């Protein structure tokens, strides 16, 4: 044992064990050459909850595909990597999935900035990518790419779906609590554009750093501006903290609170008295008379500790299913052929799980998904997780700006 003692050996064993732990989770597959799908999402950090739900949805899609023979007769493997909510890490993981694991298709990320950075990598490598959960407009706007599609909404679609409702219900003077990064900025300007058209005014905007835990200073300012409504654009844990403090301070009894995007993950993290306001959901689990929905809800409940799917589960699920649909149509997993096949592709009922026509718009690669506009409620009447009362479901094509207004020009490879 020259130079290698017991300690060294133990350390090496421990290190080897850790390396095993950091390997991606691989859904076991049968067959000689499975089709590999790479997924990069922030499994740790502030967006861990939505990211894990996206992965769960993608895993369900893979299981369903494999049960029916896979994609083009080949089994599917899902390789999941953690971007840790960090752009550098996300890019590194995406490169690793492409260069070392030879994935045929990429999904990710919840964080807009990481999604954009990964899109640079996939574009450079000529690989098809579906952005599952990053909302900032340039992804299917000024920064759009031939190989990048997006499942979730743009911020303009979100704003267009709900602004008129908020204006009619609350009045013309709005005050924003906005997260200080790409998503928040684009969302606020989209809402301001709507508000201007409607004839309203902005009393002020509090730009809050991502990950703010105490919103009291901003709320003191917002209340003193005396608006008709406080519009919350923060997301995730920031949304939870902000809404909770608004209710603790009793601000909602004097000034109503509302916003655009709301998520079931956030409503469930709130105490009942703080589940208030008008919002839009990007997808909702409880819809009447939607084919195949009950089966999807039941399947997710099985793997989610009995809890219902959120929009994030559907994003992950739809991202994988879109790849399979495109592959079937193109009869290939070549990225260029897949990208052409996805253009204007309409999702079938077993994938879209909602009313209205849902399709990838060819001009900017944005999915035209419905917006579920309604109101948060303290308790579900039938199911404890039915925390959102949907008042209307708007078709994506009715709220998306025309392609010409998105700033997107697609450059296809020769």
């Amino acid at each position, binding site marked *: 044992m020259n130079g290698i003692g017991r300690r060294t050996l133990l350390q090496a064993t421990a290190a080897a064990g850790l390396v095993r732990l950091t390997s991606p989770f691989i859904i076991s597959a049968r067959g000689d050459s499975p089709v590999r799908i790479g997924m990069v999402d922030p499994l740790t950090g*502030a967006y861990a*909850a939505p*990211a894990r739900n996206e992965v769960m949805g993608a895993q369900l899609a893979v299981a369903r595909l494999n049960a029916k023979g896979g994609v083009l007769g080949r089994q599917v493997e899902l390789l999941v990597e953690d971007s840790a909510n960090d752009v550098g890490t996300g890019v590194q993981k995406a490169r690793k999935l492409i260069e070392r694991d030879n994935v045929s298709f990429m999904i990710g990320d919840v964080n807009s900035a990481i999604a954009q950075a990964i899109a640079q990598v996939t574009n450079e490598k000529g690989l098809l990518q579906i952005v599952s959960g990053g909302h900032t407009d340039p992804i299917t706007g000024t920064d759009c790419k031939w190989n990048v599609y997006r499942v979730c909404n743009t911020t303009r679609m979100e704003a267009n779906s709900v602004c008129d409702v908020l204006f009619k219900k609350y009045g013309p003077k709005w005050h924003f609590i906005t997260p200080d990064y790409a998503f928040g900025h684009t969302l606020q300007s989209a809402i301001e554009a709507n508000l201007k058209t409607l004839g309203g005014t902005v009393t002020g905007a509090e730009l*809050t750093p991502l990950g703010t835990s105490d919103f*009291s*200073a901003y709320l003191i300012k917002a209340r003193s501006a005396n608006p008709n409504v406080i519009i919350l654009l923060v997301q995730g844990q920031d949304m939870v903290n902000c809404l909770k403090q608004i209710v603790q301070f009793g601000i909602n009894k004097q000034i109503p609170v509302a916003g655009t995007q709301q998520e079931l*993950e956030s409503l469930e993290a709130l*105490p009942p008295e703080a589940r208030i306001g008008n919002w839009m959901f990007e997808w909702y689990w409880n819809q009447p008379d939607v084919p195949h929905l009950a089966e999807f809800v039941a399947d997710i409940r099985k793997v989610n500790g009995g809890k219902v799917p959120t929009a994030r589960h559907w994003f992950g699920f739809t991202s994988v299913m879109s790849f399979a649909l495109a592959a079937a149509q193109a009869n290939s997993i070549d990225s260029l052929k897949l990208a052409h096949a996805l253009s204007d592709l309409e999702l079938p009922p077993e994938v879209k799980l909602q009313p209205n026509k849902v399709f990838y718009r060819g001009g900017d690669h944005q999915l035209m998904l419905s917006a579920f506009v309604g109101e948060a409620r303290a308790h579900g009447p039938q199911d404890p997780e039915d925390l959102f009362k949907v008042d209307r479901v708007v078709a994506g094509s009715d709220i998306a700006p025309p392609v010409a207004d998105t700033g997107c020009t697609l450059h296809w490879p020769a």
Partner: protein
Amino acid sequence: MTELLLFNVTNGLIIGAFYVLMALGLSLILNLSGVINFAHGGFLALGGYLAYTLTPHVGFWGALLLSPLLTAALGLVLERLLIRRLYGRDPLYSLLLTFGLAFIFEDGTRFVWGAQGLPVSVPAFLNQPVSNELFFITYYRLFMVAVVAVAVAALFLFLRYSRVGIRIRAGTLDLETVSTLGVNVGRLRAINFGAGIFLAGLSGVLAGGQLGLDPTMGSGLLMPSFIAIIVGGVGSLPGTLVGGLLIGVAAGVTAVFVPSASDAVMYVLMAVVLLARPRGLMGEEGLMT
């Protein structure tokens, strides 16, 4: 504008009081053992989550007491098994160890309680504002300040008058001499570490009631606590107290004028203090080197 400013100064003091509680725990451990405890935020989150689990059985008040004790007990186990081995070595070792522990805590919390945030219920009478005018002062926030005041007073009395407290203070100044005098330094460090972690657990329960629970909650609150120590002066507990209140007020006042800079102002304050007075406002010369 004056009213807005006054509101935010008061609000900043309330936030600062909370930073103080967490920073004092960090400071205790750093001063005596030289351990830069990056896992402090993890202990905080654990305190909050344990309270969430305990509340249905023992109520909020029972959880407020039991949860920090359980967190401190786990802290003592980790101190015995891992941290103790690194005393006397370069602080980098304990920094790396606790940095790793912080990750384990965060993922462990996620594994046990889930990645999704959880709401914590506090007694209804605490969850309302004192008055319509002073809407940002809720009874819960007042209660938090009171708990912080009691904890700080108890800590200072303990360090000032109890035998163990006096030894801890003596050890902070010259551990070698204290050891030579026959004091069991190992046990002293363990008690000190346990007390520090108790404060982290208590901060966690209080933060849970105010903000709800999230596996990442500790890391968000950790940096202001470090800044409070550096601004106040490493080695000085009164300095930590002043540092915590100061950065709370600075963040609150900045939010009136430049909301997006309210986080950054803490770092600016730290930089200014380090440039003008490297040992911190109340720190002792030489401890920062």
